[in-house]
């Protein structure tokens, strides 16, 4: 067991969590609808069939959700661009292609960046947070993102959810800093998943609870508390994803943490977002915590990580839930979920047969245009245009080679025209797209995301979101671009 006393590390006094961001997909899968589909063969799932879990849209994956969480953390931070990016997940789309590089590109982070993907177990997010907080030097953006696809009719299908959380860690005026941590690594296989597969294979829950959680977790937590120099009963918030129901109180009791400090594992809001979940729960806790509070974060998976954090004066506890924990939109169509997750093959017709092979050489040339949503601003007349071009599009200007990169991803925009196209193939028809006008007068024909036909009207304000544009199943590739998401009125 490895322990660390953050308080003894002089360099760490001003190092801590500088900003947080979290993202849940808009869709919330209704668990009753899932269980109803399986009632004929797995009536026992009824017990879990309450509320909703978050569900990635067809065009979301661990990369796109990471981008959204990362944008939010960076927007919340008054800090220079990070020098390091870590992307933690067990469900990254590419086994060999740095997923973090796609995220960095979409966030328009400087190319002088150290970046890594980390995975391996559900501990990936928590472990990366310990390393980030223990590290020294510049700003590090840590994002954990997960989109797991459990087997239909497994309990995991009801327990898990999709989502991402991001923490900007570095020197400055942190919201919270590390007091101490401990880690244990053990090849305790409560579940596993072969590379490239969906769906976990898991062992009996009673064994997982009695031999795993119950025996492996408490010593690590105690070590972390000891390293932090904090008594268990002084912990104000106990963050531990609910691997099994009611496991939080069991651990709390064993280590002496007050049960009322157990943080809501968000089963009712989104479900367990895997490697992202401790950070997602922490993001919510930090949004609600006041100054001088202690937070215990625990994650189990091939061992255990435990961190003890303390909030600073910058933590300004709020009673209101953070905006990302909104109600979302309930999805009751289980067949749609199966189709979005590739677990059922529907007849999409011949239009779906179009070959979406990507020319990697062209994609590299267009990397900043496509991932960074970078257009060009004419140095002569100020016209912003997308994509950037050699000759300014303004007919009264026409200057050559005057355009500087101009990122459109964060620019306000609105709908100029739209349609709901039922002819084009889309994994979630209709294909909604239209002409988008940015506040700086740039215009782009764009796809709309996360909306219903009724949400579209000329003049509706839009936010840009990074999404999967097309999937190439023949070669196992997917290409990403930005889409325009209508700003929905409250409650929609």
């Amino acid at each position, binding site marked *: 067991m490895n322990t660390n006393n953050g308080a003894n590390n002089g360099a760490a006094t001003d190092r801590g969590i500088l900003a947080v961001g979290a993202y849940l997909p808009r869709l919330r899968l209704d668990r009753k609808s899932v269980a109803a589909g399986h009632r004929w063969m797995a009536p026992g799932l009824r017990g879990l069939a309450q509320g909703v879990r978050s569900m990635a849209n067809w065009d979301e994956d661990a990369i796109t959700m990471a981008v959204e969480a990362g944008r939010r953390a960076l927007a919340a931070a008054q800090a220079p661009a990070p020098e390091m990016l870590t992307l933690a997940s067990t469900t990254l789309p590419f086994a060999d292609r740095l997923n973090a590089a796609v995220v960095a590109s979409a966030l328009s982070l400087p190319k002088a960046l150290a970046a890594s993907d980390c995975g391996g177990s559900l501990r990936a997010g928590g472990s990366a947070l310990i390393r980030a907080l223990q590290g020294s030097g510049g700003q590090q953006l840590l994002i954990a993102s997960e989109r797991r696809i459990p087997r239909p009719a497994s309990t995991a299908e009801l327990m898990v959810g999709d989502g991402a959380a991001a923490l900007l860690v570095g020197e400055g005026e942190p919201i919270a800093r590390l007091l101490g941590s401990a880690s244990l690594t053990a090849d305790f296989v409560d579940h596993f998943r072969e590379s490239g597969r969906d769906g976990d294979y898991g062992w009996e829950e009673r064994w997982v609870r009695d031999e795993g959680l119950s025996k492996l977790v408490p010593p690590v937590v105690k070590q972390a508390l000891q390293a932090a120099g904090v008594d268990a009963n002084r912990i104000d918030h106990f963050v531990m994803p609910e691997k099994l129901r009611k496991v939080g109180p069991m651990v709390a009791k064993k280590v002496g943490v007050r049960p009322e400090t157990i943080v809501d594992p968000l089963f009712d809001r989104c479900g367990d977002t895997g490697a992202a979940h401790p950070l997602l729960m922490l993001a919510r806790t930090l949004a609600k915590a006041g100054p001088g509070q202690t937070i215990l974060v625990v994650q189990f998976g091939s061992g255990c990580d435990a961190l003890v954090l303390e909030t600073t004066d910058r933590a300004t506890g709020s009673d209101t839930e953070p905006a990302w924990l909104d109600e979302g939109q309930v999805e009751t169509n289980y067949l749609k979920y199966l189709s979005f997750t590739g677990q059922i093959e529907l007849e999409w017709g011949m239009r779906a047969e*179009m070959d979406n092979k990507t020319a990697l050489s062209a994609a590299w040339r267009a990397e900043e245009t496509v991932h960074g949503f970078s257009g060009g601003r004419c140095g002569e007349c100020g016209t912003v245009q997308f994509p950037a071009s050699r000759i300014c599009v303004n007919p009264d200007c026409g200057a050559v080679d005057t355009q500087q990169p101009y990122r459109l991803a964060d620019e306000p925009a609105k709908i100029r025209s739209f349609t709901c196209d039922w002819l084009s193939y889309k994994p979630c028809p209709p294909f909604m797209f239209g002409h988008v*006008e940015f506040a700086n007068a740039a215009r782009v024909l764009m796809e709309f995301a996360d909306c219903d036909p009724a949400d579209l009207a000329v003049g509706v304000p839009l936010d840009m979101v990074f999404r999967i544009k097309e999937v190439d199943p023949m070669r196992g590739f997917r290409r990403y671009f930005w889409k325009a998401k209508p700003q929905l009125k409250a409650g929609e």
Partner: protein
Amino acid sequence: MANGIRDRVAIVGMGCSRFGERWSDNAEDLMLEAFSEALRDAGIERNKIEAAWLGVCLEENNVGKTAGPLAQGLRLPYIAVTRVENACATGTEALRGAVYAVASGAYDIALALGVEKLKDTGYGGLPVRTRGVVADLWLPNASAPGAFAQLASAYQAKYGVSYDDLKQAMAHVSVKSHDNAVLNPKAHLRNKITIDDVLKAPTVAEPLGLYDCSGVSDGAACAIVTTPEIARELGKRDIVTVKSLQLAVSNGEEAQFSNWDGASVRTAEVAAAKAYREAGIADPREALDLIEVHDCFSITELVLMENLGLSDPGRAPFDILEGRYDRNGKIPCQVDGGLKCFGHPIGASGLRMVYEVYQQILGRAGERQLAKADIGLTQNLGGHPHQNVCAISIIGRLGA
């Protein structure tokens, strides 16, 4: 200042195949069907053709690349044959090639032929296709109805026209074309429909329903062109000439710059102004006896009435509803059924439009013959409203 093409080239023969689902025919059969009619009309031997232009758009579903299919299909004797492509305006592009070749004096007699075999794709509508390796990275892979439907929402927003008024006017466009096609034996869709049929049809791309969309057809059309002098030598008394041929191509402003309203086809405005000037037409509303426009969708025809200067801005829906463009209206539009009902074999469509104007001028339009037809306009559009090529021709009696 160039003099333009007015009256410098005559059309001496035209042919058009029956359009439709020609399951049993190859593109070569369609080409020969149109060409044979044109040769008979011109009264010349096949070996008098000195140069030819083949218009084919989607060669991958069709005859493949190069001009070879025309040379081989018609067994042309080792003459110059050029293949052209300009999206849905390909047919007019072939005509431009042949007409300019004759006007240049390089050839006495030239052929323009457009053909498309669209019904070998296995599904309805135009085939899906790539936009190129770079554009595919960011451009939505929009269907044609989706791209043209944009006009409707922008038009409503710009002019404050209600959804219902616009839908009614669009429905009138389609009902009118179906009525006209009943009288056209070569048309693909020859059934009458009602306003109610249009309004209740399944949605293709909001607000376009099934009956707001043109047919997708197999077919070919062609023109044999020469000088007015040779036309007389061939014994032609009633000589039909080209008054203007204009082409305007989007340069990216509509899609990328803030000076386009999204409710119009700017290339049509530009090309029309040049075409009227070239033809010496001061007031097109009085001068034109008939028009054949690119009614790929009902909304396209609607906005084109304004962009061609025939309706005032914001007034097209009401002019349409008042019957201004019906066959007995002030400016009959699509008297042959248009793309909507005659059909839309892409490479042939521009030449099909000219074919109808030519037949009307020569008084050969049978049941659908108009009382007065001395001069007519064709407008052929390729691409999408925000990025397109627009070809306009004005065809008329020599001296008109």
